[in-house]
């Protein structure tokens, strides 16, 4: 990539923000597919879904890895979405930065918790 800083930096134009835009769509598609996968496992279970059946869905190693990927996808997706909301409605730079920092702390905290739950299962 050519130098993108100082007087040569690109401040406008195509590809500016394209990566996040695309990432949001790709992660959305992944999460939609994952939803169908979990739903299918719940719906096609014979009998009532109690603790064993429900926890069993997430206990296999491949499902743990897949769920892990989805949690990371969600982290990125929500970050892009919330940043869009702050950029659109919050004008003062200081307040916006504060909210963005809060968003990151909130999301990384939630992600860590979700992964911890997943890996002690």
């Amino acid at each position, binding site marked *: 990539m050519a130098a993108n800083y100082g007087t040569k930096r690109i401040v406008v134009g195509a590809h500016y923000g394209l990566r996040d835009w695309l990432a949001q769509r790709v992660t959305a598609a992944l999460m939609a597919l994952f939803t169908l996968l979990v739903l299918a496992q719940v719906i096609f279970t014979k009998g009532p879904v109690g603790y064993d059946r429900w926890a069993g869905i997430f206990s296999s190693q491949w499902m743990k890895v897949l769920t892990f990927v989805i949690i990371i996808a969600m982290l990125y997706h929500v970050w892009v979405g919330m940043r869009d909301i702050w950029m659109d409605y919050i004008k003062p730079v200081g307040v916006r930065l504060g909210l963005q920092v809060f968003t990151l702390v*909130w999301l990384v905290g939630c992600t860590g918790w979700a992964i911890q739950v997943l890996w002690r299962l």
Partner: protein
Amino acid sequence: MSDTATAVAKKRPEFRNINAFTDLPGYCLPMAGIVSILHRISGAIMFVLMPFIIWMFDTSVSSEISFARFKGAFNVGMLGVPGFIWKLVVLALIWAYLHHAIAGLRHLWSDTHHSAVTKEFGKTSALVTLVLSIGITIILAAKLFGLY
């Protein structure tokens, strides 16, 4: 340039002293606009309630005991809040997820199909989004509150 512009320009209707009852009802968001703002609101709701979502994941999969605690929160209540309030919170999340997912799929469709980027398709797909998300929410609400 400016001469022709002024010559062509028709006299525009002028509105003063807007009447809240006769004028304002006409100024509403189009269907696609409603779906769009609800997409943001539903996303923000899920962001704010994310710790509660992970709490539900945690308690429901961790152990038999925590699973009982999970069920108890909705049947008996938790933190001094009755169970049906927690069910309403879950219902809000169900709606938020359904709306966000369906409206998101609509976005993906518009991103990949030129035929989807018309005023007509925008309106009908927005209507389909609202009907599906609200419809499934009502069906699941009946299940959640034990109507069937």
